[in-house]
């Protein structure tokens, strides 16, 4: 078990190192950030001064080593745009993103899981067709369009909810629906396929043969097992929603991490983009690591598989 955990941790570290190198290179391929920091007519000397001030005059290799050395001590650099440590900016926005992500995850589960179960239980009926239609809509309706429609209906016409920004529960409702709607579709599809697989298994057939009512078979036996991959996906989705809800956060002027990332990309704020991506990667890798270890604890066959 110890060897398994050590191996998984090593893989995670390697993944993060590869991620850091990739994002370090990608942001630098977008161009020179100094041109966006200086006035349009800035002199070459001014540009050189700013480059030196931010350490951008050094070679990429030196910049990368410095970045990694600092990252190991928890320091992800200072944002060009905000002049604040990236970690400080990230954790300032994290509560908002967590709030949005949790609400959206809840909505995606509340829509996706019941619809997926109904779809699987009533497979090839019109219930199933409706559920598949919902899934199709969820995957195909663009989030920005849905967001704007929600604003027009619930803020402008009905005047029930505020248009944008963060505050109380009323602020989070529309962005959470717009964000959760897309993920509900994937939840629905996964729940449906997972339920179908479980419902076709031998132990479910045995339960039915024993004369257990359908409700008990579905609720007590099938449902629990079918939900394992669904909740795993929900965990990963949550991390994505927290860190990369860019469009929804822009539409609703939600002060979260996705918008921070969006602004960083447009301003070529290298430390900010690198930092947000690394922290998001750290969360995803961390969650996967925990899930892997949990699986290994539950099922010994997994830790014996190389």
């Amino acid at each position, binding site marked *: 078990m110890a060897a398994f955990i050590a191996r998984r941790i090593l893989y995670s570290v390697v993944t993060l190192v590869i991620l850091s190198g990739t994002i370090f290179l990608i942001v630098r391929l977008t161009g020179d950030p100094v041109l966006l920091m200086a006035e*349009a*007519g800035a002199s070459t000397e001014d540009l050189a001064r700013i480059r030196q001030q931010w350490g951008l005059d050094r070679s990429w290799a030196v910049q990368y080593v410095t970045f990694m050395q600092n990252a190991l001590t928890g320091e992800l650099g200072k944002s060009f745009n905000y*002049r604040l440590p990236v970690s400080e900016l990230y954790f300032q926005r994290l509560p908002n993103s967590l709030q949005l992500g949790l609400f959206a995850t809840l909505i995606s589960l509340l829509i996706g899981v019941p619809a997926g179960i109904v779809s699987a239980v009533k497979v090839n009926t019109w219930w199933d067709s409706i559920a598949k239609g919902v899934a199709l809509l969820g995957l195909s309706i663009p989030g920005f369009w849905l967001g704007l429609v929600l*604003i027009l209906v619930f803020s402008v016409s009905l005047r029930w909810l505020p*248009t944008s920004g963060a505050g109380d529960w009323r602020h989070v409702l529309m962005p959470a629906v717009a964000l959760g709607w897309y993920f509900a579709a994937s939840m629905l599809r996964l729940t449906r396929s997972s339920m179908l697989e479980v419902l076709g298994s031998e132990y479910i057939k045995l339960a039915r043969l024993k004369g257990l009512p359908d409700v008990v078979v579905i609720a007590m036996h099938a449902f629990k097992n079918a939900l394992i991959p669904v909740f795993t996906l929900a965990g990963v989705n949550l991390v994505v929603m927290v860190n990369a809800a860019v469009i929804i956060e822009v*539409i*609703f002027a939600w002060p979260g991490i996705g*918008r921070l990332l969006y*602004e960083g990309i447009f301003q070529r704020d290298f430390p900010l983009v690198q930092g947000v991506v690394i922290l998001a990667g750290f969360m995803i890798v961390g969650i996967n690591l925990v899930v892997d270890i949990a699986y290994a604890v539950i099922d010994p066959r997994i830790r014996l598989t190389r």
Partner: protein
Amino acid sequence: MIRVFTLALVLLAAVTAALPYVPSAAAAAKGKIVLAWHAGFASRWLDPQEHDGTATPDNFFWALHDGLVKNQGTKLFDHPALAEKFSIAADAKSATFTLRKGVKFHNGDPITAQDVKFSYESYRGAKADVFKNRTERVEIVDAGTIRFVFKEPFLDFGILFGTSNVAAPGWIVPEKYYKQVGPDAFKQKPIGAGPYKLVRQEPGVKVEMEAFDGYYRPVHTKELVMVAVPEAATRVAMLERGEADIIYNVPGELINKVKSMKGVTLAPVLSGSFFLEFVNFQDPKNPFRDTRVREAVSLAIDRRGMNQVESGGLGKVSGNWINDDVLYALDWPEFPRNVEKAKQLLREAGYPNGFDVDWVTPLPAFYSRGERVIAQLREVGIRGRLQTMERGIFFQKLRGGLKEFPGVQLILHGVRIAGSWSFWYEAYMKCGGSNSRDRICVKELDDKFDRYEKSVNPAERKKLAEEIQRAILENHYLVPVYRHAFVNAIGPKVAAQKWQDVFPTITTGYAYPWEDLKVRD
């Protein structure tokens, strides 16, 4: 002549001299105005010491900070603010400012000549090199008087010093506090001398301010909140719901929607000028070398149509490519549209079937304007393709010069530069200029421009400025398209008879001076 000019400046300063000090102005301040912005905020915008020379940070300077003199209302640069008066020496080798009595920073500290000296000498933003290279020393004459002494006559000093969307060495920060907390912490909790003091900021998202009761002018609105809302439709919805009172940048497709909203006033502030550049037209192989071809391009452009479609008719079709709100801008009549004459000129120039342009590159993200130019040129036989690029890349390529734009190319620029016509010339026409680089080189005009730069005779400078602009327009070296409108909107809560009451400063597209904003009773 220098004496005449100096006398004029002194008179100007005297005539426009300080308004009387009005203490505790915020006592009468009431209400709250929320302004929804079209972009995220950068913290450096709260620090005039690092002014990037663009037209956005001055919004924040005007709220939190103040300058000695500034561009306010119809004044281009010489509205007295923290300085109650100023004068420029007869030989233009020094400028003396007298501080208004009793002015204070938000922390209660008095503003002293030493703060002015520190702000000037430690300034490291746009044009800092110009001020540093031309200043011999800064003298504190007494506690309320300061003199800038130049190495040589510095005729552009006033306009550079006092135009807040060009440079900000004259915007005063408290030396003691600035040194104590350092530049980065200052940006998070700035202390200034402006009409509003900072209450709270969420970096990039929101800046909350309240009226400063020690400001020397009446401040009418108690709370001023600026919120960054990148999506235009959301800003419009905020206005409709009364969540925002002023919104910036209403795009063309939403103008009619805003027009139909009850109690809402559109504010189509004239802003950037759009014009065409013929890349490397001096090359003998370049079809644009021929003046007739360049004129044909000008005749092909449907300027009124462009204004109508792109700016809802709220822009302005003017003859000059340089905005009329800068020093020595030449007034020029609208260029006509005449497709038949354009075709005829092309035939005379040896292009009866037109020719191909490799790329037409518009300023990002005004791609639809580039497409319209292409469509209009096609009518006379000039066939082009649209090249789009990200904004940063566009400016990077401009700075790269001719090698970045090989072959036959057109660039559709969109520019707003405050201050002087010469800043436009230097940036977009001069050989080796900051954006024109080596793509345009008209030696005769550059020689004249050198004479302009060296001259200390205002009449001669004005004459040279007009000659140069006339030559550019008559020879179609650059082809003006139109001056677009930066369309904003004002909600019913803001007291205004007309939109100009909220956007009175002609050198900017923004709503300052903030202290004049009033909430309706």
